[in-house]
C-alpha cells in the first residue's frame, strides 16, 4: 500500500479496525449527556415556536408578514435560498469529492449529507408557506385534474419544484445506501432485544458480502456521477427564479455560477460550524483533524473568492452596460437605504474568508469556527440584499417602499433552525456520525501504525 511521505495521516492515533468501530459507536451507547438533552429541548422549543408562527400565517393570512405590494419576497424566500445553499455542501462532499477521489471526505461525508437532507427539508417549507394556503400545495404537481389545466413548465418556479424534490429524493437514497453497511455494524454490536430488531430491519439484511460491496461501489460511483450535476442544477435553477425575471439586479446571466459557488461556500461554513462542535462533543477529534479543517477551508477560500469576483463583476457590468437603471440598482444597493445589509454581506463574504490564506488561521479550530459563523451570516445577507434591495425601488417611484419582517417571519426562520437541529441531534444519537466502513477503507493509507511498518 502506498503511503504518502508528505501528507498527514487522515485519521490520527494508532487505530485498529475494531477501535474505529468502537469509537464511532460509542456516542450511540449509554445515556445521552445533559448537553444533548439541553440542545434537543432548545431545538424543540424553537420548532414549536416555528410551528406556531406557521399556524398564525395560515390562520390569519400572509398579511401577518411584513411583505407589501412592492416587496413580495422577503425573509421567506431569503431563507429558502439560504437553506438550499446550506444543503449543497453535503452533496459536494459526498459526490464531487468522491469523483475526485478525495479520501479525506470519508470522515465528514455522512454528517454533511445528513445536513443536506435536513437543510433541504427546511428550505422546502418556505415556498409552501409562502403560498399562504398550505392545502393547495399539491397544485404545483402536474396531475390530471378536473380544472383541465396543467402546470406551467415554462416557469422557473416549477423547475424548482422538480429540482428540489429530485434533490431531496436522490440525496436521501444516496445517504441511506451509504448508511446500510454501518447500520449493519451497529446491528451486530447490539445484543438481542428490540433495538437490535430495529437496526436489523434498517440494515436491509446487510452481510458484507464481496458481491454486495462490488455492486455497492458501482452504484455509489454512478449515483455520485448523477448527484454532481444534480447539485449544480439545483442552485442554478434557484438562481433562474431571479435571473429569468426583468427586475434590474436580478436579470443577470452571472447568477447560476455565482449562486452555485455561494451555495457551496455557505454550506461548507455550516458544515464546519457544526462539525467543530460535534467532534468535541462526542470525542471524534482523531477522525476530524486539522488537515480536514485545512482542506475544507481551502474550498471556502476558492468558493468565497468566486463569490467575491461575482460581486465585483456585477458592479462592473452595471457600469459597463451603460444602462442607468441597472447602474442605479447597484449604486442603490451599496449606498441606498439598505447599505448596511450590503456592507455586512461584503465584509462577511469577501473579506473574512481571505483570512484563510494564513496557514495558522486555516488550521485553527477557534478561528475557523468564528469565520464560519461570519460566512453563514454573510451568505444570508447576500440573499436578503439580492431579493429586498432589488425590489424595494420599484419601476414607479410612487411604489417605492421599505420592508422589515414581523415576529411571525422571524419565528418561522427560528422554527426551521429548530427543525434542523432537532433532526441533527436525533441523527447523532441514533446513527453513526462517521461512515465507519469508509473510514476503515482509508485507514491503511493514513494510520501511523502502517507508516511505521513501511519504514
Amino acid at each position, binding site marked *: 500500500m502506498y503511503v504518502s511521505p508528505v501528507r498527514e495521516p487522515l485519521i490520527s492515533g494508532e487505530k*485498529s*479496525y*475494531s477501535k474505529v*468501530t468502537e469509537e464511532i459507536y460509542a456516542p450511540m451507547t449509554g445515556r445521552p449527556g445533559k448537553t444533548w438533552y439541553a440542545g434537543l429541548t432548545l431545538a424543540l422549543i424553537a420548532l414549536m415556536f416555528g410551528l406556531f408562527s406557521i399556524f398564525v400565517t395560515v390562520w390569519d393570512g400572509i398579511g401577518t408578514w411584513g411583505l407589501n405590494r412592492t416587496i413580495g419576497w422577503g425573509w421567506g424566500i431569503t431563507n429558502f435560498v439560504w437553506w438550499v445553499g446550506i444543503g449543497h455542501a453535503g452533496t459536494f462532499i459526498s459526490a464531487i469529492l468522491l469523483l475526485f477521489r478525495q479520501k479525506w471526505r470519508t470522515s465528514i461525508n455522512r454528517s454533511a449529507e445528513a445536513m443536506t437532507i435536513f437543510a433541504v427539508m427546511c428550505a422546502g417549507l418556505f415556498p409552501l408557506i409562502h403560498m399562504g394556503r398550505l392545502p393547495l400545495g399539491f397544485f404545483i404537481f*402536474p396531475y390530471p385534474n378536473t380544472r*383541465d*389545466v*396543467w402546470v*406551467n*413548465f*415554462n416557469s*422557473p418556479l*416549477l*423547475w424548482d419544484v*422538480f*429540482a428540489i424534490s*429530485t434533490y431531496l*429524493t*436522490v440525496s436521501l*437514497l*444516496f445517504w441511506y*445506501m451509504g448508511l*446500510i*453497511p454501518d447500520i*449493519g*455494524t451497529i*446491528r*451486530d*454490536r447490539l445484543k438481542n432485544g428490540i433495538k437490535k430488531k430495529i437496526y436489523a*430491519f*434498517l440494515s*436491509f*439484511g*446487510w*452481510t*458484507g*458480502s*464481496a*458481491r*454486495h*460491496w*462490488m*455492486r*455497492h*461501489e*458501482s*452504484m455509489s460511483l*454512478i*449515483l455520485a456521477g*448523477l*448527484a454532481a*450535476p*444534480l447539485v449544480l*442544477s439545483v442552485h442554478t*435553477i434557484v438562481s*433562474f427564479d431571479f435571473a429569468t425575471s426583468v427586475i434590474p439586479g436580478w436579470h443577470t446571466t452571472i447568477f447560476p455560477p455565482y449562486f452555485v459557488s455561494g451555495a457551496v461556500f455557505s454550506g461548507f461554513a455550516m458544515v464546519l460550524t457544526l462539525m467543530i462542535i460535534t467532534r468535541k462533543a462526542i470525542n471524534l477529534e482523531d477522525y476530524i483533524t486539522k488537515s480536514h479543517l485545512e482542506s475544507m477551508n481551502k474550498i471556502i477560500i476558492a468558493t468565497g473568492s468566486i463569490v467575491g469576483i461575482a460581486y465585483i463583476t456585477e458592479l462592473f457590468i452595471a457600469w459597463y452596460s451603460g444602462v442607468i437603471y441597472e447602474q442605479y440598482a447597484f449604486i442603490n444597493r451599496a449606498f441606498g437605504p439598505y447599505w448596511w445589509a450590503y456592507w455586512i454581506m461584503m465584509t462577511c463574504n469577501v473579506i473574512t474568508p481571505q483570512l484563510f490564506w494564513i496557514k495558522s488561521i486555516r488550521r485553527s479550530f477557534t478561528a475557523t469556527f468564528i469565520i464560519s459563523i461570519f460566512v453563514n451570516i454573510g451568505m444570508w445577507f447576500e440573499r436578503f440584499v439580492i431579493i429586498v434591495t432589488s425590489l424595494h425601488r420599484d419601476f414607479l417611484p410612487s411604489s417605492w417602499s421599505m420592508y422589515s419582517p414581523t415576529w411571525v417571519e422571524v419565528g418561522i426562520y427560528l422554527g426551521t433552525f429548530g427543525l434542523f437541529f432537532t433532526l441533527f441531534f436525533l441523527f447523532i444519537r441514533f446513527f453513526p456520525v462517521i461512515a465507519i*466502513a*469508509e473510514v*476503515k*477503507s482509508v485507514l491503511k493509507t493514513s494510520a501511523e501504525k502502517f507508516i511505521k511498518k513501511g519504514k
Partner: protein
Amino acid sequence: MKNKTYVSGYFPDDKDLIIAIKELQEKNVDITDVRTPFPVHGLDKVLKMRRSRLPRAGFIAGTIGAVIGFGFQAWVFTEAWPLNFGGKPYLSVPSFVPVTFELTVLFAAFALVFGFLLRSHLGPGADNHIFDEEVTNDRFQILLEAKDGQVDSLQESLQSVGALGVQLHEVKS
C-alpha cells in the same frame, strides 16, 4: 428442505485474505462467499466476479426518464394545454431542459438503488444469515459451502491457508 452446511474462517487483514483466496483457488476450492467489513480493492478481480450491470440499468432508466420528461412537457404544451407566451413557439425546447434533466437523474437513481437492492437480496426485512457478527467489525471472512463428506477437507484447506476460527455452520435453507 435439507440444511446447508458451510465452513467459515476469517483473517484479520485484507492482504492475508487475498493471498489465502489465491491459494484456495490453486487448490480448486470453490469459494461461496467472502465477507468483509469494507470494500476490499482487487477482491472482485481475484474472485473473478462479473462487472456489475447496474450502470447499464441506470443508463436505461435515465433514458426512459428523459423521454418521459421531455415527451410529457411537449405533449402538454402542444396538445393538451397550449399556452401562448408572447407568440413564442409552443414547443419551447430550452425551457423543457431543466425538468427533463431532473427526471433523468431521478429515474436513474431509483433504478440504481432498487437494482442494487433487488440483485443483492437486500431490503427492509431481508433476513440474510449472518455467520459471524464480527465481519462488520474487523474480520475478513471466507465462506465455503460443504457438500456431503467435504466438511473435513474444506476445514483442512482453510486451516492450511492460515484462516483463524474455522467453524462449521448449519443453515436452514
